[in-house]
């Protein structure tokens, strides 16, 4: 595009009014409702809101089938126990998985922090660590699924312990969450590679989008990752503690 006249230089609104007055001012302003929020970040927030409704619907569906079935629901503490030396420890695997996922949120925060400082090596390293933690979470989930399917005989359509919906909702909801984590891992690796290569320092254009890349994507990625963690906390509470 041809350059516009001098009055159209980009102004960064730094003196935003605080509190409710500020919110009202932003919403009644022109151009942007959320000042200083890049498009990608705004989009991710709205996507996550929509995704929240998907997970909420899944969890509400789970509660409904659990309440309406007349067959007893299997005991989570027994089904999800792992034996070490003959002694079953309830929820030990899930505790480790949760710990790992929460830890990965921590490394993600650090990655975002170094991304803001445009420290490409540290950002890339932390993104890779986050991806590895996420991948190990998915790996342990695969282990858990295998154990349930092979050893305990749990199937989506039935199981020896009680209500058939136990397996259905378990595989469906943890599967859907695991899919989210896997997609996250994939994109973490892609973003890490671009950070490492310096794409965001040179503002290299995206292959498909031909848009200039920048470090904002690290924060957007972070929003997604924390969301996936937060959802896990709810799934954890509703599946393993109820």
């Amino acid at each position: 595009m041809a350059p516009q006249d001098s009055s159209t230089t980009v102004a960064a609104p730094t003196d935003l009014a605080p509190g409710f007055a500020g919110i009202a001012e932003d919403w009644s302003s022109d151009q942007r409702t959320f000042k200083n929020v890049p498009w990608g970040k705004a989009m991710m927030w709205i996507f996550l809101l929509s995704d929240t409704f998907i997970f909420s619907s899944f969890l509400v569906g789970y509660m409904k089938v659990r309440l309406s079935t007349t067959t007893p629901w299997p005991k989570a503490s027994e089904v999800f126990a792992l034996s070490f030396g003959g002694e079953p420890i309830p929820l030990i695997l899930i505790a480790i998985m949760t710990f790992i996922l929460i830890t990965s949120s921590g490394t993600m925060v650090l990655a975002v922090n170094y991304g803001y400082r445009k420290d490409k090596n540290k950002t890339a390293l932390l993104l890779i660590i986050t991806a590895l933690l996420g991948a190990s979470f998915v790996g342990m989930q695969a282990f858990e699924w295998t154990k349930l399917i092979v050893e305990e005989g749990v199937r989506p359509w039935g199981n020896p312990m009680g209500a058939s919906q136990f397996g259905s909702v378990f595989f469906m909801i943890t599967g859907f969450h695991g899919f989210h984590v896997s997609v996250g891992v994939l994109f973490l690796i892609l973003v890490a590679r671009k950070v490492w290569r310096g794409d965001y320092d040179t503002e290299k254009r995206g292959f498909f989008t031909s848009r200039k890349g920048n470090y904002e994507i690290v924060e957007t990625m972070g929003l997604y990752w924390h969301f996936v963690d937060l959802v896990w906390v709810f799934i954890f509470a509703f599946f393993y503690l109820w």
Partner: protein
Amino acid sequence: MSNGMLEETQVVPLAEIEEVDLYHAHHWITKYVFSQDAKIIAIQYSATAILIGLVGLVLSWLMRLQLGFPEVFDFIDAESYYQYVTMHGMIMVIYLLTALFLGGFGNYLIPLMVGARDMVFPYMNMLSYWVYLIAVLVLTASFFVPGGASGAGWTLYPPQAISEGTPGIDGGIILMLVSLVLFIIGFTMGGLNYVVTVLQARARGMTLMRMPLTVWGIFVATILALLAFPALFVAGVMMLLDRVLGTSFFMPEMIVQGEMTSHENGSPLLFQHLFWFFGHPEVYIVALPAFGVVSDIISTHARKNIFGYRMMVWAIVAIGGLSFIVWAHHMYVSGMNPYFGFFFATTTLIIAVPTALKMYNWVLTLWKGNIHLTIPMLFCVAFILTFLNGGITGLFLGNVIVDIPLSDTMFVVAHFHMVMGIAPVLVIFAAIYHWFPKMSGRMLHEGWGQFHFWITFLGSYLIYFPMHYLGFIGVPRRYFEIGETSFIPPSAATLNEFITVVVLIVGFAQVVFIANIIISIFKGKPAGDNPWNATSLEWQTATTPPGHGNFGDELPVVYRWAYAYSVPGVEADFVPQNMPPDEVKRTDTATGAVADDPPELHQ
């Protein structure tokens, strides 16, 4: 007017958003096929939606042939009749109306009306269309698999939808559910774009409260869709698992054809809740863009500002919010707790308040306006009447005690076709007649437009008014044939024949419309940049149709709302949104003196 306000409005805020490079297509494939330009995507969306909509139209003819002349057509048996009903409903509600209003008009109008170069993420916008196209193809494929398309009724209620004996149980229902899931994925990619573009990519001076109501309608409808489609997504996934893997989310223990099914203890009611948590907002996903478009068109063609703009905006927002807490009024006879019925009847009737407010404001906009009875205007007036009709029968059905005897009768069919079939389709026609000159640079033929309008408008009343009566005397919906029933008089059959004949006539009138579009693209009267003398930004583009990047070298700057029509003291009867105040020609002073400007100029 105090000078304080003038000084405020004359200051043009600095641009906060850096110009983003657009994707420059060099090959015709990236220009017209895999295009990232919202306008091309809009036309692709619209064309696909209209094509699949024509399939839905033909299905309705086949249905009506059976209802009007039972036992005459050998090729329509009970199975195929149910398949027509199901596919007609699903195609019209989701693949035509939702896709056309949001994917079609949303893509075309949002960037142009808010003064943006394009959607914020053009690449994702392109993907949105292609996923939608795949969803449409998967849906269409279900006609051709063994067993044919699903015949479960468009609501797909379990356990019947996936039980033996329902048509399409082999492949049709699976393809239907996969197609719905794909549609939702595709829509989400587009919907995120629409919302972020409205929130974060407006032109300088374009505040939310200066946006045309069309953008408000599409914006709020998109938010509804982003929050409502998840419930359908979940219901679709669960039913798919029930069908394919044999889980029992929705399937209770049943004996089918003398044998116990493998399902146990599922909750069919859960599906209904999930489905209608999507299904009711869906009504407003279709209605809100229609509300917005109607407001803009009647304001433009009556040369008068919309009455109560702020009220109109808040009514859209209020209707959008309320639409999430009324869903179980579709379920009064489902066996849910009757106390729920009380709650949902109350919320349903409350929705009538903001909706009535909009009706009054449209009528008050027309009041003493300089009304031009152009084709878009005719369709909009027809919409106001039709929506009023459908809305009032909605009040009947919203009350539990009236709904229970009317449930599953033709009255319900007449009601929802009036309110979310005919009414939004009339607006789609209005919008196409109104914006076609911008999309193609040529006008649609006026005479054929008149013909199309009168046949469609009068015809739809001849179809649906008698149908209310059929419902009152107890003719049930979804019956392949009524046969001889003691409480239904033989005149019902005559009335059914009459309706069928009108349906065919109205259906063929749409051929005239399609022909009008195709011929006008090549031979229509040149339209110029602004044939309706409208104020909003899409009519102020440098070229018609607007080029890549919408606005040429410089993005527009907005000085006022979109409804500066017949402003007192101004020479022209409209002032474009982007005309600087000192360029507006006054009747009293030759120069641009703005000291005594009417407030309408700076709204």
